[in-house]
């Protein structure tokens, strides 16, 4: 008994070959991996999480707890995919997981070796004591034994996309209710998106032999699909799962675009991560069959009653014969009748109810199916199920069966309704939880709301669909509704066969047993949320969809409370697992963020530059030349050439903010610690700005271009932050100031030339009448004019390197020509392009602070800039920078360092200790922030923050760097190793 000779929604003209654990099989188009395995008689599919017990299929849908497999191989290997939702394709290659050495013979299952160690609370018991076992046993053995699949070890070769969609009405689930909701809303003209996780619309209709409007219900599905396809404002998304409900009517959905293909089609992603913004949504997610807890209920062959029906009716397959049905409700009986009609022999229906409804008894009799009323399954046997032991009315009987189809009732699929914190509500009449308070804009229809009959699903779908559309101003009519059966639900609550033999599983995926629930109760972990954490009930990929209700019902029985009071845990997104790759989308590797080349990038590349990421930018790091051994040699050459003659660097990456208006001077006085309102037109001043808590935020130079026009520069890293801060100050703190600001960082290319011959170079490209003489453009002056025969330029006489320097700004498109012109003009002086490394060396030689010192934890006093602060005015951060702790003379303060032995190398990050003090935190006196090899001095130099540093010039301390094994004496010196008086700047 495997595949039936006819029937099923499979295309028998399209056979598909696939392998499972290396064995070749055949299925058909329309199969899932699970149904194809069933049709091939494969009943053992996986090993359980903790105890490595053999497991088969439990369900036929996304609630599957057992049948997790690894799909594909190599870089495309994907662990923990549910065989029940994997659409079969030609060449599919799947493997079982969590077994060793083989699925059929698993050593760790032998005798339940570790079972005694893995009961409820094992994380808190077994792993705690004795501690000596941690490394020998827990970590290497138990952790490996308790596991799921293996992720691929190579980068995923496929693409993932993100997409957005907007609609009036989102319908989640394409079964009877969902189709009616989409049709009803769609007919009103509303923009509708219908999403279904299956590859075929219809939901349970596909698995049930029902009639709608006196015709096979599949005809209704076909008509509905055709009508929806013809509506221009309706979009139907198959193979798409809504996994989360978010604020503002946003729904997260995962579309499996290429998962049903060996390799995604060209130019298409494997999966697409959707954010769907819907004004209204109707959840029509159906319901799932619930197991009953009894000894041996995890044996391969034990499955849900609705799964038996689904495999038999939809896929024309059954993995064995005959079947016994064990249930407490009439819906399971109709599953048995459908399965029987499809071709599965039913040996017996065992119902816990002593007197099942006569109408059901009559239907069973008509089909010749034996009924054991008032019966319970108390044991099963066979590695793969071979028989079932039933006790009824005091008598015990063993029935040969390869399938045991179990149903303890239906559980509405309501996970999405609790993503906003809405607690499901227990309804005793259907022995199940239904949605409670709903997320805004979401309604629920059909089985997901506990309305089970086909007629009610159709009607409720139409009603909720019409309400959603009408709410939005459309005119939708909820009638007429197609006619279908409206059989009442008959269920008698039943959770657990207390007197049964063998391990009775509550949660198949997490291997949580009835005994674990009892232990949790005994040890006081009785609240449902504690029960969940203590036993791991309801965790992992299936989110307890088949286990939660049984677990809490059994806890309710133990505590003597009713189920209503016991309550249930909440579901959180995602409803089904979402691959990290899908969340990342195309934001990976080089596409993780944009690469911003500087205006001179192409020129620098032609010069052979090595580049480095600096903030958002890619900057030239250094310009190696043939014959140079390493970057250090290159950097030495660049520094030496600059200090000896002239060097050139692109500084376009500094933030540039244009400020205009009558109040700019006053504004800058409040933003910077020093005064800018008094700055003369044509002058530049270095400024430091604080955060309101008194710490330094950023520094840079600001020029006054005209009376009401200033130009600020910020550090590369903080450009956006400072801009946002200035907007905050202007809009939130002082909206009365008349100041307009604009970021012009990308509008201006800026190239710095520095060195004793910098003026000679500049003079060769400056157009008359621009006067770049020392008198015409003195240190800290700015001139506006043109260069290179008519290119508008601003020339700032500033210096970061300590040499005579100019920064020449031109419109960004002229940046590369400017660099070339300067190189040409500088050729007689051997002008040398340098990168960020040489820039860093020269600023450390000069003692300028940079990002390493402006680290958000330093005050102006710490940086030796305290005297800059104006005492005549308020500014951001002033009040709190005067707190006593800021004035503590023991605060680490900026000083310079050089090694006592000139051959020693300094390391940034080394901590300072007094000689003879042990290396403990209490003795820490600060740390080295920046180091460089100084070509000018011929040894390493550093800047650092040292307690009472400026008072200790000439002293030596230990620079202790345990990470790199260094511990050397260093001499404290003034920061400013080169030209400390700044004479070179002013020549």
């Amino acid at each position, binding site marked *: 008994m495997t595949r039936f000779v006819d029937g099923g929604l499979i295309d028998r003209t399209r056979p598909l070959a696939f392998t499972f654990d290396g064995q070749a099989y055949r299925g058909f188009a329309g199969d899932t991996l699970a149904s194809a395995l069933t049709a091939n008689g494969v009943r053992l599919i996986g090993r359980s999480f903790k105890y490595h017990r053999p497991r088969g299929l439990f369900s036929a849908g996304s609630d599957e707890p057992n049948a997790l497999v690894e799909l594909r191989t190599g870089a495309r290997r994907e662990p923990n995919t549910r065989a029940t939702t994997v659409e079969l394709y030609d060449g599919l290659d799947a493997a079982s997981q969590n077994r060793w050495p083989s699925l059929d013979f698993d050593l760790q299952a032998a005798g339940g070796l570790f079972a005694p160690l893995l009961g409820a609370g094992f994380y808190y018991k077994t792993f705690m004591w004795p501690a000596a076992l941690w490394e020998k046993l827990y970590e290497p053995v138990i952790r490996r034994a308790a596991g799921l699949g293996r992720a691929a070890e190579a980068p995923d070769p496929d693409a993932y996309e993100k997409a957005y969609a907007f609609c009036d009405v989102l319908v989640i689930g394409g079964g009877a209710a969902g189709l009616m909701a989409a049709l009803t809303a769609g007919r009103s003209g509303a923009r509708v998106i219908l999403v279904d996780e299956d590859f075929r619309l219809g939901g349970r209709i596909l698995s049930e032999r029902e009639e709608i409007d006196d015709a096979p219900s599949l005809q209704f599905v076909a008509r509905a699909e055709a009508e929806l396809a013809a509506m221009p404002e309706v979009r139907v998304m198959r193979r798409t799962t809504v996994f989360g409900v*978010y*604020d*503002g009517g*946003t729904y997260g959905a995962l579309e499996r675009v290429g998962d049903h293909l060996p390799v995604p089609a060209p130019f298409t992603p494997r999966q697409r991560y959707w954010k769907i*913004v819907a004004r209204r949504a109707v959840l029509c997610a159906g319901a799932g069959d619930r197991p009953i807890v009894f000894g041996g209920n995890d044996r391969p062959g034990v499955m849900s009653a609705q799964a038996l029906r689904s495999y038999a009716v939809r896929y024309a397959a059954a993995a064995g014969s005959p079947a016994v049905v064990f249930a407490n409700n009439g819906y399971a009986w109709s599953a048995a009748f459908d399965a029987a009609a499809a071709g599965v022999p039913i040996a017996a229906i065992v119902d816990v109810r002593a007197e099942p409804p006569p109408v059901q008894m009559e239907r069973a009799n008509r089909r010749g199916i034996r009924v054991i009323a008032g019966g319970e399954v108390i044991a099963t046997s066979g590695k793969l199920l071979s028989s079932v032991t039933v006790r009824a009315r005091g008598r015990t009987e063993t029935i040969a069966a390869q399938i045991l189809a179990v149903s303890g009732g239906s559980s509405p699929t309501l996970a999405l309704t609790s993503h*906003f914190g809405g607690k499901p509500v227990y309804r005793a009449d259907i022995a199940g939880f239904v949605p409670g308070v709903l997320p*805004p804009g979401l309604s629920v229809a059909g089985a997901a709301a506990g309305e089970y009959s086909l007629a009610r699903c159709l009607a409720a779908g139409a009603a909720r669909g019409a309400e959603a559309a009408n709410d939005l101003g459309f005119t939708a009519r909820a009638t007429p509704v197609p006619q279908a059966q409206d059989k009442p639900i008959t269920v008698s609550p039943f959770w657990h066969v207390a007197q049964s033999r063998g391990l009775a599983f509550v949660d198949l995926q997490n291997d949580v047993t009835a005994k674990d629930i009892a232990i949790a109760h005994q040890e006081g972990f009785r609240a449902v949320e504690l029960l969940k954490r203590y036993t791991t009930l309801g965790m992992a990929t299936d989110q307890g969809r088949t286990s939660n209700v049984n677990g809490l019902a059994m806890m309710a029985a133990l505590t003597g409370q009713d189920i209503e009071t016991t309550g249930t845990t909440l579901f959180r997104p995602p409803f089904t697992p979402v691959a990290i790759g899908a969340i990342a989308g195309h934001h990976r590797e080089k596409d993780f963020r944009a690469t911003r080349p500087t205006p001179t990038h192409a020129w620098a590349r032609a010069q052979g530059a090595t580049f480095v990421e600096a903030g958002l930018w890619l900057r030239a790091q250094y310009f190696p030349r043939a014959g140079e051994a390493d970057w250090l040699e290159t950097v030495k050459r660049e520094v030496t050439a600059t200090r000896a003659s002239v060097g050139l660097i692109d500084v376009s990456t500094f933030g540039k903010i244009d400020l205009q208006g009558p109040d700019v001077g006053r504004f800058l006085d409040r933003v910077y610690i020093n005064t800018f309102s008094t700055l003369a037109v044509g002058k530049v001043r270095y400024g430091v700005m604080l955060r*309101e*808590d008194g710490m330094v935020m950023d520094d840079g130079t600001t020029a006054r271009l005209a009376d009401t026009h200033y130009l600020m520069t910020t550090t590369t890293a903080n450009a*956006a932050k400072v801009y*946002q801060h200035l*907007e*905050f100050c202007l*809009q*939130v*703190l002082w*909206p*009365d100031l008349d100041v307009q600001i604009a970021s012009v960082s990308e509008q201006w290319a800026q190239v710095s030339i520095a060195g004793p011959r910098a003026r000679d170079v500049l003079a060769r490209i400056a157009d008359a009448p621009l006067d770049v003489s020392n008198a015409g453009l003195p240190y800290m002056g700015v001139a506006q004019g043109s260069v290179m025969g008519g290119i508008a330029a601003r020339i700032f006489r500033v210096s970061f390197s300590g040499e005579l320097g100019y920064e020449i700004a031109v419109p960004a498109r002229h940046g590369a020509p400017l660099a070339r012109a300067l190189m040409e003009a500088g050729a007689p002086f051997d002008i040398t392009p340098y990168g960020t490394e040489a820039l860093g060396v020269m600023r450390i030689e000069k003692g300028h602070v940079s990002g390493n010192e402006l680290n958000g934890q330093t005050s102006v006093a710490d940086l030796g800039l305290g005297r800059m602060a104006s005492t005549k005015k*308020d500014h951001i951060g*002033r*009040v*709190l920078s*005067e*707190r006593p702790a800021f004035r503590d003379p023991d605060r680490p303060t900026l000083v310079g360092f050089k090694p006592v032995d000139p051959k020693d190398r300094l390391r940034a990050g080394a901590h300072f200790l007094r000689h003879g003090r042990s290396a403990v935190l209490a003795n820490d006196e600060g740390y080295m922030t920046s180091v460089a090899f100084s070509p000018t001095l011929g040894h390493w130099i550093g800047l650092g923050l040292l307690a009472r540093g400026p008072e200790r010039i000439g002293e030596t301390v230990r620079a202790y760097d345990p990470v790199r094994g260094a511990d050397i004496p260093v001499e404290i010196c003034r920061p400013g190793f080169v030209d400390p008086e700044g004479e070179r700047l002013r020549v």
Partner: protein
Amino acid sequence: MRIPCPYCGLRDAHEFSYLGDAAPQRPDPAAPDAADAFHDYVYLRDNPAGPMRELWYHGAGCRRWLVVDRDTRTHAILGTAFATEARS
């Protein structure tokens, strides 16, 4: 979450950056208790469960600072205004 910017219309929250409670006003730096007042202004924040007026910056849009009325329990946006107008 989406925020109705008074200038740009209904936009995804990713376009905005969050600062926090809009209630604290920068104290008078010349007041005798300025140190304490600034301490409160910089560090002390209420954490209400319910409607809260917050500062958001529409950095990927019009670059305006907004005062957004948001219910911290539900993320419902009850109203938005430019900070320049909401606070002056």
